[in-house]
């Protein structure tokens, strides 16, 4: 088997209209500046796409990038990224997925694919080291994600497929690879609009070997040690998956209940990871390769299924006041078969329920009742009945039927399952996150509520915290490894180990900007440089993350995003929950001003010339 030393740097540009493809060699400085993965994908689209195009038109493109880590056997490196313009939000979206497709694409000798144009009739692509074959997808069209994958599983080792939802242009349709998904903001709808049902990659043609093997092995050993030592990664995640958060959020008062009108619920433990682990006898079912092992599957109602992730539980469980794990996993199954994002689906359902209770929207959906939920989900996937409207997401619905005050979305993307009224930093994070109310842009709640390193109800040093986290998350997504590695890689470093907690707390509350710079994040850059053979320091690594973040913001501002969009739903800003005894309102404006300032944006939230120059963007 041939070897690829480091990265192949070959990007496959596929034009579906002309049924042709070409090869693009990534320039070395592009790789150096944008690291690969999400960052490189954004850069490539930034060069190719002009602003103001229709997300579902043929001018929109999808970039699927494998990144540097995958295939080398680095811990938790089985992930790849995809970037496109979202039909749900009308701005850029970037997703990360742990399915087998990434590995297959990488080992077919490609670092990424860019999909352009629009096929006349349904097709699916076969990718190998030589290039692409356009195959007729008549036999696949209409099949759900899993069946479609089974049908063509013999043709390659990694598959990317959309379900009926994607074909019907449901605005929050997602793309499946194995049982993992390119989740949010309608990647699947874009593929569907291109009449592209699936992409198969042959894989197993190349072997990826790092440039500096010795250094790589050293780093890998260290990383593995950290991961196995850390409470978060080797404790809760490994035993209970991400659902371990249910109890934690319930105790901390940031669990969404009844469309974000409550922060805690007595029955929450019934849908928690612990309960499920006991009830369903869970075993691992994760991305490959993975060291953390947060994904689980279990025996639910006699069938072996994926255990729903926390966001699914939060949005389709407690947020709809439903505390039956079996029901939730049924809906999770429907969503994953039809190919829909569970977070947006849950948020939209919650809106529909409240709107129906208030009489704004005609349906039989009610909080706490599981009737018609499955049917509604199917309607959404098939875009019929009330599904016609709900398939457009809660922003569209609230504009059409009223009830914008309880449509819990930012920039059109429904909010993840952490209530910012218990964690103000998360409020800022949601408001400024590039793709909408997203919890993966920066997770302030972890430091505020779980680790209690920053006062959740203050606004001191929140802006710098969010900036740092956004930068590092973008950087990690550009290396393409798992964001959960952040906990072990940062918290298990000697400095953090020996530092007493109260000292950390004081530092974080008073001067987070400086304190965070002292955190040792050398593992990621070391991996990257050992694989590619280029130099990369911690500062350069963070700077790269910032570059990606600002580039995405720049692309969004070209679509009309500005301060007016960096806000939170009225409910979160004006209403209080029973558990907020102090009735503090989120000081969003204050934090925004500060954030824009340290980001180098102007008052209106648009990146200044100076910062673009400094970061070598355009």
């Amino acid at each position, binding site marked *: 088997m041939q070897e690829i030393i480091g990265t192949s740097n070959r990007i496959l540009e596929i034009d579906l209209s002309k049924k042709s493809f070409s090869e693009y060699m990534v320039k070395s400085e592009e790789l150096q500046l944008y690291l690969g993965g999400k960052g490189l994908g954004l850069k490539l689209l930034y060069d190719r796409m002009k*602003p*103001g*195009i*229709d997300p579902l*038109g043929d001018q929109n493109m999808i970039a699927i990038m494998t990144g540097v880590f995958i295939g080398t056997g680095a811990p938790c490196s089985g992930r790849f990224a995809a970037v496109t313009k979202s039909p749900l939000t*009308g701005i850029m979206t970037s997703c990360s997925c742990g399915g087998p497709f990434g590995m297959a694409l990488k080992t077919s000798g490609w670092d990424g694919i860019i999909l352009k144009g629009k096929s006349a009739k349904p097709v699916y692509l076969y990718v190998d080291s030589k290039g692409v074959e356009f195959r007729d997808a008549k036999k696949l069209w209409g099949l759900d994600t899993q069946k479609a994958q089974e049908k063509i599983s013999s043709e390659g080792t990694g598959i990317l497929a959309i379900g009926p939802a994607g074909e019907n242009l449901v605005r929050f349709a997602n793309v499946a690879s194995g049982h993992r998904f390119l989740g949010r903001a309608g990647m699947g709808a874009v593929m569907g609009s291109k009449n592209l049902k699936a992409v198969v990659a042959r894989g197993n043609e190349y072997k990826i070997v790092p440039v500096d093997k010795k250094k790589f092995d050293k780093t890998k050993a260290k990383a593995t040690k950290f991961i196995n030592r850390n409470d978060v990664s080797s404790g809760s995640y490994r035993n209970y998956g991400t659902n371990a958060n249910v109890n934690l959020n319930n105790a901390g008062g940031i669990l969404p209940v009844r469309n974000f009108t409550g922060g805690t619920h007595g029955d929450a433990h019934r849908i928690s990871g612990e309960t499920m682990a006991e009830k369903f006898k869970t075993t691992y079912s994760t991305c490959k390769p993975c060291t953390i092992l947060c994904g689980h599957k279990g025996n639910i109602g006699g069938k072996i299924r994926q255990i729903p992730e926390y966001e699914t539980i939060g949005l389709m469980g407690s947020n709809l006041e439903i505390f039956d794990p079996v029901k939730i996993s049924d809906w999770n199954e429907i969503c994953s078969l039809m190919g829909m994002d569970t977070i947006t689906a849950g948020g939209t359902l919650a809106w529909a329920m409240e709107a129906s209770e*208030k*009489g*704004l929207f005609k349906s039989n959906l009610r909080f706490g009742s599981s009737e018609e939920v499955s049917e509604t989900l199917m309607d959404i996937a098939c875009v019929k009945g009330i599904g016609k409207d709900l398939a457009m997401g809660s922003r569209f619905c*609230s*504009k*059409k*039927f*009223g*009830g*914008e*005050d*309880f449509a819990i979305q930012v920039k059109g993307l429904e909010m993840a399952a952490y209530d910012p009224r218990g964690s103000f930093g998360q409020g800022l994070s949601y408001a400024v996150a590039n793709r909408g109310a997203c919890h993966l842009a920066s997770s302030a709640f972890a430091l505020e509520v779980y680790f209690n390193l920053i006062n959740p109800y203050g606004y001191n040093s929140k802006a710098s915290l969010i900036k740092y986290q956004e930068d590092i998350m973008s950087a990690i997504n550009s290396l393409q490894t798992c964001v959960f590695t952040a906990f072990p890689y940062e918290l298990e470093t000697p400095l953090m180990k020996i530092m007493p907690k109260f000292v950390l707390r004081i530092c974080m509350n008073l001067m987070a900007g400086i304190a965070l710079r002292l955190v040792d994040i050398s593992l990621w850059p070391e991996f990257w440089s050992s694989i590619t053979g280029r130099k990369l320091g911690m500062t350069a690594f963070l700077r790269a993350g910032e570059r990606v973040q600002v580039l995405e913001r720049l692309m969004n501002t*070209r*679509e*009309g995003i500005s301060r*007016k*969009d960096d806000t939170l739903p*009225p409910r979160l*800003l*004006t209403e209080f929950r029973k558990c907020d005894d102090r009735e503090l309102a989120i000081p969003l404006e204050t934090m925004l001003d500060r954030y824009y300032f340290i980001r180098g944006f102007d008052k209106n939230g648009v990146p200044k010339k100076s910062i673009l120059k400094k970061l070598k963007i355009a």
Partner: protein
Amino acid sequence: MQIPEYFEFFNKTKLCSGKMALENISFDLKSMDSVKPLVVTDNRSVKSGYVKILKKSFYDSGMVIGAIYDRVNDYPSTATVREIAELYRIRGCDSIISLGGNSPAAVAKGLNILVSNRSDNLMDFTDMSRSASLRPFLSVLTSAAAGTETSSEAVIDARSYRSFDLMPDIVYIDARLAKKGNTNQIVNAGLMSLAQSIEACNFKESNPVNDSFAYASISALYSNIAAVVKKSGASKDMPAFINGLAISGIVRSNAAAGLAGAIGLETEKLTGFSAGIVAGIVLPRLLEYKLQKVKTGVRPELLLPIAGIDTYCSTDENRRASLSVELIYELLGKLKDNVPDNIKMMPIPEYMIERIASGAEARGGKNYPKGTTLKVLEMAYHGKKSSEVK
């Protein structure tokens, strides 16, 4: 002066504007046999101290304010209305005062419907003919006014409730409540109302009374908006400006929906950019386009409120209409810090234009030939004048 063979004009709103205007509230309430008002307002008015001033004006009036509900947020929703209705009943109030901009006024109107009909479901009254006669409703305008307060329409949760009964009985405009406001908001409100008024007096079915109201509001808005924005609300110009807004509200409830306004509202709905600014950009192009199509598309009298009597008289009969259009362009030039030259600069993605056009056509395009909306919108999008594109 043209008079259509049939027309109606209705206005029940009394304007009470000037020094110590607020002090009259208690007297007027008494004369309407009401003793316990409920004040509906938002957080902004509390912050800028308007609520305190209103409270002071009730001192020594022997009148108890039932409650001051100050949690109305920028989006008027049925839930809020229902909540206030409950409060209203608990306190046994018998009249409503709205203090602030569009949102409190809309909520107050909704509240008025609910409490007057002893109902709990606002949806039943989308057809207002079912509603019983309403309670006294006073509206106090501040620098956050949008001009919709005096109109006969209330938009709550994306539903529009339309009836002349919804117009406030009395509107108070007090210099003390006309402090420095949010500039963008002022520009937005000003341009929107200006567009509404100008279009209102350019329709065939427009009637002389409404015209005279429209002229009043146009002159008040046109002559003051620039100054108000520059000084962002010096106490001299602001009351006049707010008067202009208030009158335009009355005008728009007596006229058909204008196209520029409709385009603005549709844009706001689809993209979230403020309606007024878009309407402002569209307005002159629309008028110019009308002029090109029909010589009498824009009436020459329009120049009178805009430019004043001297210019009006010294201008040739045939140039008056076109001059007034130029003057509107000029105004936009004056406001260029807040109003971009074209819609593209805002920026709004190009693929939205057609959606906006189709939406706006349905809203307020019935007075125009088909396709006008799209043409005008494209001009506005690329910032071209109608005279440039042939």
